[in-house]
């Protein structure tokens, strides 16, 4: 079963190959496979050829291994393991190394510009790849977190689209909250 190949066709008609086990990291693809509607090539009209390899790379790393990203979220500790009678310390160590390695991989994997980030998030959302969606959403959040409204506008290339009256009101809101903070 692990050798079964699936073909994915991007929005610009390029075909990519992926193992079935890896493809199962995507809920959407998994449903198509399990539904038996597999007809050679699966068309993905929402994913372009410059993003699809990136998605496949993620699936290959995580395919058939749904627990890994969860383990990262838990700080590398799998709680269920502790109640197992044949708990193996060596195994646990190996697991930690694996999780650390995965974290490092994810860091390198996520090194791209904003444009790719949005497209990848859209693809992850469309293909229902929870781990990838989580990574991209967190990266977007980290680009906004702790920044002033002006910095956010600059970062995301946004022009304030408020009318002059609204602008006035916005400044008031901003001041009010800043005052409240300063007062503390």
């Amino acid at each position, binding site marked *: 079963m692990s050798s079964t190949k699936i073909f994915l066709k991007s*929005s*610009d008609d390029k075909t990519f190959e992926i193992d079935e086990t890896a493809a199962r990291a995507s809920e959407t693809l998994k449903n198509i496979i399990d539904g038996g509607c597999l007809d050679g090539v699966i068309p993905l009209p*929402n994913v*372009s050829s410059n993003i699809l390899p990136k998605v496949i790379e993620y699936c290959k790393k995580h395919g058939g291994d749904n627990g890994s990203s969860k383990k990262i979220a838990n700080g590398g500790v799998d709680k269920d393991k502790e109640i197992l009678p044949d708990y193996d310390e060596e195994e646990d160590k190996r697991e930690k190394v694996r999780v650390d390695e995965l974290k490092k991989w994810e860091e390198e994997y996520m090194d791209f510009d904003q*444009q790719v980030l*949005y*497209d990848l*998030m*859209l693809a992850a*959302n469309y293909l229902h790849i929870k781990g990838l*969606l989580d990574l991209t*959403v*967190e990266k*977007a*959040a980290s680009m*906004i*977190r702790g920044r*002033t*409204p002006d910095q*956010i*506008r600059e970062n*995301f290339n*946004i*022009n*304030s*689209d*408020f009318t002059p009256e*609204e602008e006035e009101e*916005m*400044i008031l*809101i*901003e001041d009010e*909250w800043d005052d*409240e*903070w300063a007062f*503390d």
Partner: protein
Amino acid sequence: MEQGGTTDLFDLPECCIVDILSRICTSPRDACRLSVVSSFFRSAADSDSIWERFLPFDMQLILSSSVSHSLLNFSSKKEQFLHLCDNPLLIDNGTKTFTLEKCSGKKCFMIRAKELCIVWGDRPMDWNWPSLPESRFSEVAELVDSCLLDFHYKTETRLLSPNTTYVVYLVFKLTALAYGLENESVQILVKLADGGRSEQGVVRRVRLQRSVERKWEGELPEETKVSKRRWRSKFPFRGWRLPLSRQEDRVPTILEYIRYPSSWGTTLSRSWGVPMVTGSNPKERGDGWMEIEMGEFFNERGEYGVDIILMDPTTGHGKSGLIIQGMELRPKVNQ
């Protein structure tokens, strides 16, 4: 997504935007700051899914004990939140009010003066219970003329926000003819009744009334210092002790006060064996009332009560003109 076109933040599905913003907005302040970026950010940051996380989880329980029922009709969670920050909600048969602290969304309560066990509070010559239009409650406590200023209260912490340091404030005002409150003789103790697990805290010595000749912040003129010392020597109450409660970890009852009048001269610091510090001065609240910090405590899970005691051991002279609205419990900011 158009092939060759560029994707913007605005093109992301709503669920992704809400997910992104909910990771950033850990407080109402964060959400309000984001809402000023652009109209797109505003509609996302104002959404119910962001704001409902700032309302306390036991909101329904609190609303159900509300006296009024005007709180059911709000167009959004944000509107409800902001309303609860600025409009105290009378709860528990009008004995308390509930508000939310704007920056953190934590719970604040004010307890009405009627709930405090004021010694001689039932003697009309000493205390009067008028109703004032500017008070949240139907009655306030007015010190008419008494040589005794002494009350205690035990509050439960079940309804307070967990893992939060709360500060207790006395909310009061003074009449134009107030007197007898200008000395730094009022002693206040706020103590978590956790059987000695936490630190015992300190007794705060405060002055409720600004004296005529100087400002709060100003230095004490030498003259005043001398006369104050001389005045004190006339009232040798300070060394007196309360026999029953001295070693015991509890608040003396009114009955004990009556049975052992010497307790009127004791100091809280001695009877509780805790140090005494000079507390801060009263501040204007912006609602026509003054407030003074009484003390603070850390509420972990709401399992312990809190004893709050206020007394003036200089019982020899008359005091008048203090109007107490109640005591407010608010989360300490910047913790």
